[in-house]
């Protein structure tokens, strides 16, 4: 890639025009002054010029805005941080064969939605045979033993089950994010495992549509999966992580 491609700007209809759309509400009454306030905010966000193309009152105390304009920021592609998949995508039979060789027993996976979260569709998509996006879920893999605890599992309950099942990996899901519930719950979970088992804790994997895969460290887990994850990705990751744990080359 040429140097020119290191830096990019948003594209409206011409390379480099920087055009973006934004909408927001300010807690101030509708009127020219409100439009001016919206413009100030847009400018602070780096939009220049910015156009308040729409505003309307919401009740007496709020105003909603739509603003278009050009942001001056450059995106530096070299500085983009992403979690690249650090392992190969394996087919179910590759997963099974490798696990059999490495472990000589089934790999035990315990999963559930923790805290008060009852959104099981996501974790079920990963765990249940039915699967997701045309891929079968982990239950389908001969060399995996899957224990799906379902919804609203408390952290102590999760730790207890993981112990009882001798879990190699614990997979938790968090969908509700209001007031950072997903972050707090996951941190509580990883702390509990650290406390209960120290270094012998199972592999901890968190998933949910609003997680950022870069957050693993902050959450105290080994890996984070976000929206659109498929079961195959998770199975392949588990193989990779088990190999790494046992010091086996991939």
């Amino acid at each position, binding site marked *: 890639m040429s140097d020119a491609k290191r830096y990019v700007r948003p594209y409206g209809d011409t390379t480099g025009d920087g055009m973006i759309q934004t909408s927001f509400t300010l807690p101030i009454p509708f009127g020219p002054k409100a439009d001016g306030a919206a413009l100030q905010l847009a400018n602070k966000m780096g939009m220049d010029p910015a156009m308040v193309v729409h505003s309307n009152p*919401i009740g007496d105390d709020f105003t909603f805005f739509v603003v278009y304009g050009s942001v001056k920021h450059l995106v530096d592609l070299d500085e983009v941080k992403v979690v690249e998949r650090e392992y190969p995508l394996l087919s179910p039979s590759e997963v099974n064969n490798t696990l059999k060789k490495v472990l000589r027993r089934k790999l035990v996976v315990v999963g559930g939605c923790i805290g*008060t979260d009852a959104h099981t*569709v996501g974790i079920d998509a990963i765990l249940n045979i039915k699967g997701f996006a045309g891929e079968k879920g982990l239950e389908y893999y001969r060399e995996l033993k899957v224990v799906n605890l379902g919804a*609203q599992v408390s952290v102590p309950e999760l730790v207890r089950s993981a112990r009882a099942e001798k879990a190699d990996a614990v997979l938790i899901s968090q969908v509700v994010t209001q007031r950072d519930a997903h972050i707090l719950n996951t941190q509580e979970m990883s702390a509990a495992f650290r406390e209960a088992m120290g270094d012998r804790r199972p592999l901890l994997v968190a998933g949910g549509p609003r997680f950022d895969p870069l957050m693993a460290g902050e959450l105290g887990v080994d890996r984070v999966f976000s929206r659109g994850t498929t079961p195959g990705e998770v199975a392949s990751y588990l193989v990779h992580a088990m190999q790494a744990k046992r010091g086996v080359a991939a």
Partner: protein
Amino acid sequence: MALLDLDPLVVAAARKLAARAAEPVVSLAKAHTTVAVERATLRLAGITGADSTHRAGDVPWVNRVIDTVREQCGLEHGVVLPAFHALREHDLGSLTELAEATAAGQIQFKIPTGKDLTAARKASTSAVAKGLKTVDRNKTQREKLVAKWGDPAQRPWIYLIVATGDIDEDVVQAQNAARAGADVIAVIRSTGQSLLDYVPEGATHHGFAGTYATQENFRIMRAALDDVSKEVGRYVRLTNYASGLCMPEIAVLAGLQRLDMMLNDSMYGILFRDINPIRTFVDQRFSRQVHARAGIIINTGEDNYLTTADAVDAAHTVTVSQLLNEHFAHEAGLPDHLLGLGHAFEINPKVPDSFRLELAHALLARELFPDAPLKWMPPTKHMTGDVFDGYLLDGFFNLAGVLTGQSILLVGMMTEAVVTPFLSDRDLALKNVRYVLNAAGSLAEDFRPSPDGLIVKRAHQVLGEAVDLLERIVDDGLLNAIADGTFGLMKRPADKGKGADGVVEKAPEYFNPASEMLEASDV
């Protein structure tokens, strides 16, 4: 005008099958009580407040009393006999004083007999009657206010959710929503609440993705909506959730605070909160009797099935559940005009003809339940972070609502897949509704499904599948059907689930003045 040409014999057969499927469960419900039913009864009898000195946080006094009664003499006779006996024995002024004394370890509960029994029956009956009178007064008051301020000018009624977690922010948002056109405000509950085996107390400010349902929050919001109703010149209704482990109690609190609608499904707690099936069926029956007395419209939860199962494959399970919900509701004394049976616009928008299939399903519900105020739920599952796409889909949902004559329209939010609604989402969503109602509100006049067309065929097919499924349920038993994952793909065995230990078989001498008065008021 019927557009689907449904066979009245098939419809009647479906209803009969639903009644037969429900029968054993109704018997079970009559034979049991639960901690929640007993707590609800004491609440009707006037207990309020919480033990704030308890180390586990505020514990409602009613829980302290019930738990102690159960420990000391069981609940199979009901809570009122030991409680009102103790009240007289210790010469206490109120149930709340009784609770304080209970917490202090000063009370030894027992089942009274002879004259004591008669006295306890009488005292409890008159206490509960007072509670029910408040419920009745609220019903009359609602009717008065509706007469004074008026009902919404149009059908469907516009139903909006607020969900900030903080009752004070909820008030701001609810009042603004009403000003912008909402006819019904629902305050969504905090995620954890349905599994709490008590009702929190007071005004609350820290829910997760919803605000706790408390008596005080109910009061605050109803008062705020009364203010804004006056302002906008129409009675704005308030909705909350009588689901979860405290279904009967919350139903009572709703009656006491003049709520107008309540989410109340015969199976939702079982399927989506993993609550014990028997517990749920007992609780729902009592709660529905209370709703009937209070003139509260219930909203059932069939929409939820389509978030876990596929909306095309499982369309007939919605119909079956509606028929069951209808039967359970009638049995508990709710008339048709209080049956907000639920259904939803949840077909994958990528399915060819998805909109026409939605029309088929929606019209089927409409023609099966012509007198019920059907509650039409927006797309959620196939909403994505593409808020533009979502805004459009919500528009077509609104259109389907007006084309098929839905009664209560839960307004969809473009941020469905992103966050609980922003203030502006609600405002935009209302603009969407207003456009559709104003521009195409009477388009139903020109909507005539072709007699051999996709819509008519599909509706007949779904009804046929529903009848087949009901036959299987009659054969296997409803509890087994639930255990097998018939609804929403959730498998829930009758002996599992949360709150099972709160179920108590009634003794022959079981006494509950609330139940007696409520059964009597059934028609």
